[in-house]
């Protein structure tokens, strides 16, 4: 397969599988070596990178919720130049394109990052993350500056502002929109007894973002691809996003709970059968565990969902 996930043009990004990790879930390079077959993914999206180093958040970082978690890491990272220096060799050896997730808070920072990144051929594209409370004017300025880079520009939108921001940012030069970042919420840290604020992840985020993708797909020019991201926890979840108009998907915290799920979703949407399960032993057919046999099948259509579970009848 060859899927163009950014606006067609001089610089555009083509992936062989429309499935990738969301920024922040797979680290900066190959943390999941041995657990995930990177070859099966469409791309690697890195953890967020800022120009200057950022420290980890102080206080509670994570709260388990009913079928989900609240997370507030503070986006710790050693800053753009160190990330590039330490990781470019690994990136060069990755079997898939690397998309660097950039957090920049001023036009100057974007320009600085842009000239640095244009020199780094190991980075295939840049995904710009926007602050949750960003004003439209600031967002426009950042995206316009970032669009000057010689790399395809994906823009990941904040959850609550996505209806307002998506149309103007598509026009301002985003080559693809990633819908959306995880919504912010508040939960109680039962150990500390405090209410704590952070991002909310879990399966129930999916119906909320799926609707945004469906509605915005109808509002935004066809040439700007939408990448769906939010609460994907199964191949069917991913296919629902494709069905709603997304060209590709990003899987977030499901990967932490069950690393093979990312690969399983990628195999499914990538047109591979995950596992031959008929007459197989337990370890052979469980799609998250077993050895697999790659069989080309027809491009996945939203209605034809291959049943990955064992057949009930014997």
């Amino acid at each position, binding site marked *: 397969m060859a899927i163009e996930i950014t606006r067609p043009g001089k610089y555009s990004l083509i992936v062989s599988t429309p499935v990738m990790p969301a920024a*922040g*879930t*797979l*680290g900066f390079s190959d*943390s*999941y070596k*041995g*657990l995930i077959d990177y070859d099966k993914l469409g791309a690697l999206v890195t*953890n967020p990178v800022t120009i200057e180093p950022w*420290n*980890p958040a102080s206080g509670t*970082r*994570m709260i*388990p*919720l*009913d*079928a*989900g*978690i609240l*997370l507030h*890491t503070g986006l*710790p*990272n050693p800053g753009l130049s160190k990330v590039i220096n330490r990781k470019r060799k690994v990136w060069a050896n990755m079997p898939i394109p690397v998309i660097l997730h950039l957090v920049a808070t001023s036009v100057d920072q974007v320009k600085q990052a842009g000239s640095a990144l244009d020199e780094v051929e190991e980075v295939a594209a840049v995904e710009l993350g926007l602050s949750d409370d960003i004003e439209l004017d600031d967002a426009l300025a950042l995206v316009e500056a970032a669009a000057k880079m010689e790399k395809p520009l994906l823009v990941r939108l904040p959850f609550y502002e996505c209806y307002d921001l998506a149309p103007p940012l598509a026009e301002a030069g985003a080559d693809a929109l990633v819908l959306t970042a995880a919504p912010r919420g508040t939960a109680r840290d*039962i*150990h*500390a007894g405090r209410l704590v604020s952070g991002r909310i992840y*879990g*399966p129930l985020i999916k119906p909320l973002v799926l609707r945004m993708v469906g509605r915005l797909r109808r509002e935004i020019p066809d040439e700007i691809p939408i990448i769906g991201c939010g609460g994907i*926890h*199964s191949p069917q979840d991913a296919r629902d996003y494709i069905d709603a108009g997304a060209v590709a998907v990003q899987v977030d*915290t499901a*990967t*932490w*709970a*069950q*690393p*093979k*799920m990312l690969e399983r979703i990628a195999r499914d949407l990538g047109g591979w059968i995950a596992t031959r399960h008929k007459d197989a032993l*337990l*370890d052979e057919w*469980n799609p*998250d*565990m077993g050895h697999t046999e790659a069989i080309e099948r027809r491009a996945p259509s939203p209605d034809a969902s291959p049943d990955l*579970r*064992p057949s009930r009848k014997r």
Partner: protein
Amino acid sequence: MKESQGYIERITRVNRDYQRLDLAVDKSLSSLRAGQALLVRRIDKDYEAERWVPYLRELWFPVEILASNMLVIEQPARSHFTPGQLLSIMGPVGQPFRFRQKLRNILLIAYNSTPAALLMMLAPLLERQVSITMVLMGSAREYETSHLPGEIEIIQADDDLSWSDMVMTLGWADQVFAAVGPGDELEHLGDIMRVMRERRNDVPANYAFGVLQRQLPCGVGACHACMLNLRGARKLQCVDGPAFDLTTLRLN
């Protein structure tokens, strides 16, 4: 680090409050050493859709390796397990404890935590003739120890985290491992540092270690939610832990 399948082979009640689970696991896990842990997710028997409750994997520190494919886990008796329960296991997580080569006396502390993360070292250390003292602090004082080897000296700390002969015990010990949390673990390690500093002239490097047991979102160094500030460096509990030298850990 890899992912493999295992299952609960046997459940044994070891005392009033605790049970032990014998896990049949992939052979690759038999090289696991004290300090290293597993990230475990129960798998639905029917292999119907994944259930996302609980959402994250549980962090299990084995307390014993029975055979090349058999680990033992200690859990409160009130938790419900069934023999045959299938598990998805990621591991090993973290680094083995680093004991001094000439270790003779070791002090183990459990503070508001079961000592489960410290139990796997017991059998090999006893075999090496190391003397072991275990101090239970805070809610850990309710931990029922009747199933532990008789050679281990068990001490209940007072409310102020002290115990009789404390100065002597601290001088006697070549190394200290203190398991805390989850919840306010850095504060609790700070408490322990404070009482140690009050009783000893200095707390040298490579002497006292905090053993962290925060729940880990990813467990592989990807999410950075478990990042700790050490003097001069940042480390991840999941990759570099669970034990950190208390003289290097920034405790506030």
